[in-house]
């Protein structure tokens, strides 16, 4: 028997089963989706690769896709499936931490058929514990702090409160308070004038849950950013994303239809059953007075007619042509990747220790595969952080039993580390935590030296020499500011060129050559030997050559080298060695 909203209310809001929990989850996913861009904008630095919101949403979507078609009353079992989905699809630091929160909660809920306030408290304790373990050096003023302070509030309240709605409200209010205080704990946030993005994402999730429980609208417009948007497809291992997006139905993608039904004494189970029979990717949530319908169909008239004929008032009708969305998505994705073929790139097979790395841009990918002998390059990095699952798929795809993961981005390091932990037995996986592309390339030189040794170096020796290389160089990057910001004495206007040194905002200006010059100055370039300029998909070789010549006037003792990178969004990435 399922606990409906009515039964929940009769119990004094004290007992929740899998059915209700699933509705909470969907509320969390949809509300996060609606507010994703707000989370993305909360980047400390105004770089265009702010995608905390996207990463958290992809993680949540991945979790949701596992329970979407499951009717499971057992809270413990449902939570386990949900958490596994999150783990596999976790991407970005916040996504990985989020997946650990669900994993911890699922562990506490194991074996429990229903959720009560004391059990919620247990789940919070386990969730926070696992979340803190997700990172080596937990930083306060982040999603971790928000999660911990939510847990603290729950523990205090659970001593005398049995009402789960009240508990959820407590969680939300504690989360919001904690979020507001994140700038006090993390000076970087204060300087940038933002609250922590991951913490904000978590608050949105709980807000969505509460809204779902209270029957408030959590609907979000379908956004074309996610791999599984058009057909709610889940990309299978080893499958190219284009293949994964082929329509589920021979007749094509069809239409995405969403609307609200207002009425009295509506039977939501009946509505869900009827709607499910009409199409696919069905989502029907609500109560006897308000039902939110989401369904993919070939004829949008059918579900709309059904709703009207049932006697309900319908409102907030959104009908979208998914085939057109798919085409736009393909185009946007191709543009974002600088015309390179999307997906992953396999290098030549290697014996012994293999490297899986992450990069965007034809030139950079070519350097990793053809020049440096990487066995597998996952497309992504600054604009699309690969998930733990992406790494696991790559690990599966290689026959090698000793593999090094080279993430090349600070937001990908955690996914790589979790993939290394989750990798199947029999494979030894190590992570060399490179945080920039030039660092990754420098590390690959050491990789090559190690494997071409006679005898080849062991896995751990190889990792050691690659790690040593990371600190041997400075990375400077130039991109455009996505918003106005003032950090320390640096005033940045939206659209201006900004320069980062080892991922930290250092320079802003309107002239790209001047920004580059100042970057080299701040990076003490004259104490190094070699400057390598990787030019991106919006720069030409001539641009890069002119830049190098301008810089060489000042730094005539240094070797300048120009290399086509083809990376998106960053006109220049500069390795200072």
């Amino acid at each position, binding site marked *: 028997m399922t606990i409906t909203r009515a039964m929940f209310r009769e119990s004094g809001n004290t007992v929740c089963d899998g059915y209700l929990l699933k509705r909470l989850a969907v509320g969390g996913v949809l509300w996060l989706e609606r507010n994703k861009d707000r989370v993305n904008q909360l980047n400390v630095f105004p770089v265009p690769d702010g995608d905390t919101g996207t990463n958290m949403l992809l993680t949540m979507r991945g979790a949701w896709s596992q329970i979407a078609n499951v009717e499971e009353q057992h809270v413990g079992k449902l939570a386990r499936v949900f958490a596994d989905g999150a783990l596999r699809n976790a991407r970005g630091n916040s996504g990985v931490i989020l997946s650990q929160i669900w994993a911890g909660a699922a562990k506490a809920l194991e074996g429990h058929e229903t959720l009560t306030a004391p059990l919620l408290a247990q789940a919070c304790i386990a969730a926070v514990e696992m979340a803190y373990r997700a990172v080596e050096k937990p930083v306060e003023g982040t999603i971790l702090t928000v999660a911990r302070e939510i847990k603290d509030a729950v523990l205090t309240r659970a001593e005398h409160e049995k009402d789960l709605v009240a508990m959820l409200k407590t969680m939300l209010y504690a989360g919001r308070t904690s979020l507001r205080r994140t700038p006090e704990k993390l000076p970087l946030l204060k300087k940038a004038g933002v609250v922590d993005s991951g913490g904000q994402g978590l608050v949105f999730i709980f807000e969505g849950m509460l809204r779902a429980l209270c029957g408030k609208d959590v609907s979000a417009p379908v956004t074309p950013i996610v791999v599984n948007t058009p057909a709610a497809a889940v990309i299978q291992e080893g499958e190219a994303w284009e293949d994964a997006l082929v329509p589920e139905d021979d007749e094509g993608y069809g239409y995405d239809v969403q609307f609200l039904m207002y009425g009295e004494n509506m039977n939501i189970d009946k509505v869900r059953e009827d709607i499910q029979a009409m199409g696919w990717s069905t989502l029907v949530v609500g109560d006897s007075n308000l039902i939110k319908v989401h369904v993919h169909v070939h004829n949008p008239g059918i579900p709309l007619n059904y709703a009207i004929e049932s006697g309900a008032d319908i409102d907030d009708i959104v009908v979208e042509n998914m085939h057109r969305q798919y085409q736009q998505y393909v185009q946007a994705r191709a543009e974002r990747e600088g015309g390179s073929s999307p997906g992953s790139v396999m290098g030549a097979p290697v014996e012994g220790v293999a490297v899986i790395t992450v990069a965007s841009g034809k030139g950079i990918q070519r350097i990793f595969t053809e020049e440096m002998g990487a066995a597998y390059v996952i497309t992504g990095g600054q604009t699309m952080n690969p998930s733990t699952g992406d790494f696991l798929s790559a690990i599966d795809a290689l026959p090698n039993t000793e593999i090094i993961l080279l993430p090349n981005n600070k937001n990908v390091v955690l996914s790589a580390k979790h993939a290394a932990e989750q990798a199947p037995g029999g494979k030894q996986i190590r992570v060399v935590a490179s945080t920039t592309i030039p660092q990754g390339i420098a590390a690959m*030189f050491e990789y090559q030296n190690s494997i071409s040794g006679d005898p080849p170096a062991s896995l751990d020796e190889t990792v050691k020499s690659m790690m040593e290389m990371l600190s041997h160089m400075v990375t400077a990057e130039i991109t455009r500011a996505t918003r106005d910001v003032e950090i320390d004495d640096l005033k940045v206007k939206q659209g201006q060129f900004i320069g980062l040194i080892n991922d930290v905002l250092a320079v802003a200006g309107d002239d790209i050559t001047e920004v580059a010059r100042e970057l080299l100055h701040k990076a003490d370039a004259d104490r190094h*030997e070699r400057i390598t300029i990787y030019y991106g998909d919006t720069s030409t070789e001539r641009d890069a050559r002119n830049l190098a010549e301008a810089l060489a006037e000042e730094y005539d003792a240094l070797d300048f080298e120009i290399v086509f990178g083809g990376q998106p969004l960053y006109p220049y990435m500069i390795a200072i060695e």
Partner: protein
Amino acid sequence: MAQKIRVICDSTCDIPSDLLSKHHIRVVPCFVNYDGNSFADDGVQLKREEYYRQLPHIRPVPKTSAFPPGLVEPVVEEALKEADHVVILSVPAKLSGVYNAFRLGSSNFPQEKITLIDSGQVAMGLGWQVIIAAETAEATGDVAAVKDAVQRVRNNQRLYAALDTLEYLRHSGRVGWASASLGSLLQIKPILDVREGEVKSHSRVRTFKRAFEELVKLAHEQAPLDRLAVMHADNAKGAQELKDALKDIAPSDTLIVNITPTIGTHIGPGGLGFASVSKSWRN
């Protein structure tokens, strides 16, 4: 019965002239050919500093060649006038025609008085074999002891060199892998490992600093050292720095050698390396 033994080698050995005369070592010069001329690499026709300054601008890139057997004959003849036996040490036959020129040039002499050895080494790698051969000859007067000493040195020596660029080695055509390597997307500085007549790529790095650190590490792996020569191609500053960085393991008679143009032509200006012999050779 102790014999009087003289040692002969080719000019790639790079032994400083005071040591050559001290040990009565005779050197047959190789040739460097460019601009339609052939220059003997004897320190007279080709001055090292000047040659390395010109090298980047000489096109086509100079070639080197072994001496003709005819130049070997008078040297062997002269040596045999003052000695009972001649030991000839040569740069590897795999890399050069020198060994063959020595073989042919000494073939008209009584073969029981000639010992010809392919050293498997170049530059001061060859140089240390020659010097130790001469020392052993003086101390023992025993050809077998000289051959044994050379073999033990060979088993305990290393030669590593970091090149500023792979270009010259590629042009030289004498090292297969270097000639075969296509132009790379990224510039590299190769570190070479010369052993048993083979020039191998030990590693590839991006910066001179990194190459320097690697050389220091490799030298320390050979310690304790009996002999050490720091070699460079027109990079005296780098050589001095390397010697300083190795002062904890460098023997007091450590040499700094600006390598001979015959070798320098193949590795290009700026190269830096060392040739060591570990103390274990004496065991």
